[in-house]
């Protein structure tokens, strides 16, 4: 087993912890000098229960907060690509799938983007006290925080994040190293090893993605709780990943991957993308529907915040742009093969998932409506450019597909493409 990636991730995390320890003291001092952190003031830590609807006079966010939130949004977007790749690989091994073998290597590279994403986590941990308001709220003065303090305290927050990111690195790089080892000797043992890891990995994945999303995204408004929140993020993540994977596969199918990619792979990726368009909407609707019906103030405030000002329009954009447009566009069987439909839809998926992340993160900071800053653009383009660079250099560095995977032949020879569409001859 190739241990190098593991060591370098470990070194990255060590560096991260070091920075944390060094930066912790001055940050604390700065907070003490300014009194309560501005983000905490925006929420009214003294009376959280009734402050939600009445704080239009929230102070203007500082530059560092504005940057921190933009960075967090872009970070969650990038994390989606990596975790989407990881679950793609896990599902491939769990189902002993045949059709996805030619794109497996691409998914493994995407999963291994967790390493740059882990490094991107460092600035968030450094800036944590400017981003997560509850870190500067006294649990004794806040009932919601007090009852959640087992999870929502500085130690759990940092240890869990670092630990889970390490675990994801371990899983992603193990899957790829098994696959690369199989390229050399073609032994079946690597497939069995990967399958074993996928078997426990699916549980670890489910729990860890929920925990991380609770910590990174949901705890921005710590009074809120929704048990479906992790699944919601997961659904959007895999949706984005499938769109991206479709685009990459489509591009490479006429180039280096021509010997292994056939219309079947393209169609199956498109179908899966379609399925997750529906699954995302199903989860998003379920969350809204249950909260709307139960009408508990500690849950509804989250949506009330997101119906204020132009956030209402952003919500509508998600409803139509994230679901109805792709759903109706992809309904026909031949749409999944059409570059004319899928091409624009991939770019649209990127925009919609970023909008989704904005809709979840930004109303905490910009309470009166959508507020786009230059930070948003810089962070989003900058972080995704880094991922693209890493992905591409990985792609060039290793064999282009799983060379000796036992099911490669099956994937190449079984061409069950859909029948000609109606009207075409």
């Amino acid at each position: 087993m190739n241990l190098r990636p593991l060591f370098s991730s470990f070194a990255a995390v060590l560096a991260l912890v070091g920075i944390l320890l060094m930066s912790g003291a001055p940050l604390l001092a700065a907070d003490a000098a300014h009194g309560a952190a501005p983000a905490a003031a925006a929420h009214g830590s003294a009376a959280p229960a009734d402050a939600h609807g009445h704080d239009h006079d929230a102070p203007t966010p500082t530059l560092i907060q504005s940057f921190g939130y933009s960075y967090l949004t872009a970070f969650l977007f990038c994390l989606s690509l990596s975790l989407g790749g990881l679950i793609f690989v896990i599902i491939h091994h769990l189902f002993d799938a045949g059709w996805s073998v030619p794109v497996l290597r691409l998914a493994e590279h995407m999963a291994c983007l967790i390493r740059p994403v882990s490094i991107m986590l460092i600035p968030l941990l450094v800036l944590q006290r400017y981003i997560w308001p509850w870190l500067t709220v006294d649990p004794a003065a806040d009932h919601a925080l007090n009852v959640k303090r087992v999870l929502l305290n500085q130690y759990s927050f940092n240890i869990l994040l670092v630990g889970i990111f390490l675990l994801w690195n371990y899983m992603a790089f193990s899957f790829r190293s098994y696959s690369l080892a199989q390229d050399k000797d073609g032994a079946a043992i690597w497939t069995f090893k990967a399958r074993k890891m996928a078997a426990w990995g699916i549980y670890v994945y489910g729990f860890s993605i929920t925990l991380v999303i609770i910590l990174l995204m949901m705890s921005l408004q710590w009074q809120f709780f929704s048990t479906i929140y992790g699944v919601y993020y997961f659904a959007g993540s895999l949706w984005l990943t499938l769109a991206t994977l479709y685009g990459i596969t489509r591009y490479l199918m006429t180039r280096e991957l021509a010997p292994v990619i056939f219309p079947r792979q393209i169609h199956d990726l498109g179908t899966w993308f379609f399925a997750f368009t529906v699954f995302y909407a199903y989860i998003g609707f379920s969350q809204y529907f249950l909260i709307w019906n139960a009408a508990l103030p500690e849950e509804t405030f989250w949506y009330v915040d997101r119906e204020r000002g132009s956030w209402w329009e952003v919500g509508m954009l998600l409803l139509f742009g994230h679901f109805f447009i792709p759903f109706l566009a992809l309904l026909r069987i031949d749409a999944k093969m059409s570059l004319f439909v899928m091409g624009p839809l991939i770019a649209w998926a990127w925009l919609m998932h970023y909008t989704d992340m904005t809709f979840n993160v930004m109303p905490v900071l910009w309470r009166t409506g959508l507020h786009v800053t230059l930070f948003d653009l810089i962070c989003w383009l900058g972080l995704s450019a880094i991922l693209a660079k890493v992905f591409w250099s990985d792609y060039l560095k290793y064999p282009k597909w799983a060379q000796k995977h036992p099911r490669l032949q099956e994937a190449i020879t079984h061409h069950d493409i859909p029948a000609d569409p109606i009207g075409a001859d």
Partner: protein
Amino acid sequence: MSATLTKPVGLLAQYETPADLLHAALEVRNAGYKKWDVYSPFPIHGMDAAMSIKNSKVGYFTFTGAFIGFFAGMIMIWYMNKFDYPIVIGGKPLFTPLFAFPVSYEMTILLGAFGTLFGMAFLNRLPKLYNPLFNVERFKRATDDKFFVYIEAIDPKYSAESTRALLEKTGASAIEVVED
């Protein structure tokens, strides 16, 4: 049905393996026949392409049924809750698509399924209680271990001699005239 069968309505050819049937289907397709079909105890991969069968039109029936179902559900709930018998429950509005959605969704599925089922039956001209193929004794094995091609006499390219010659060329193990 004791009357004698006199009118020939087509030719039935029997094959021993799925591969033979697939190749025969290709030949018949390439010869330009339109009114013909194949019979097999199980689905054969690639047969749709070999017969040049386009994607089924049943999706349009499904979509129409689903569309009607969704809006029928919405209108039904609007009529009952907001118009016919309004009761305020839990301070909620009398009508919003939100709480009407699950029922409308179920109606979408239900009428979508009806559209699929009845659309399929309509496109396949079912139910059909009689088919001249039932007169052929050997055709019973189409549900067991034999494979058949049936070319109807109403096909414009059909002729008793040339069609038989074509089927012989494809390696049929038996060829029989179907009568009605």
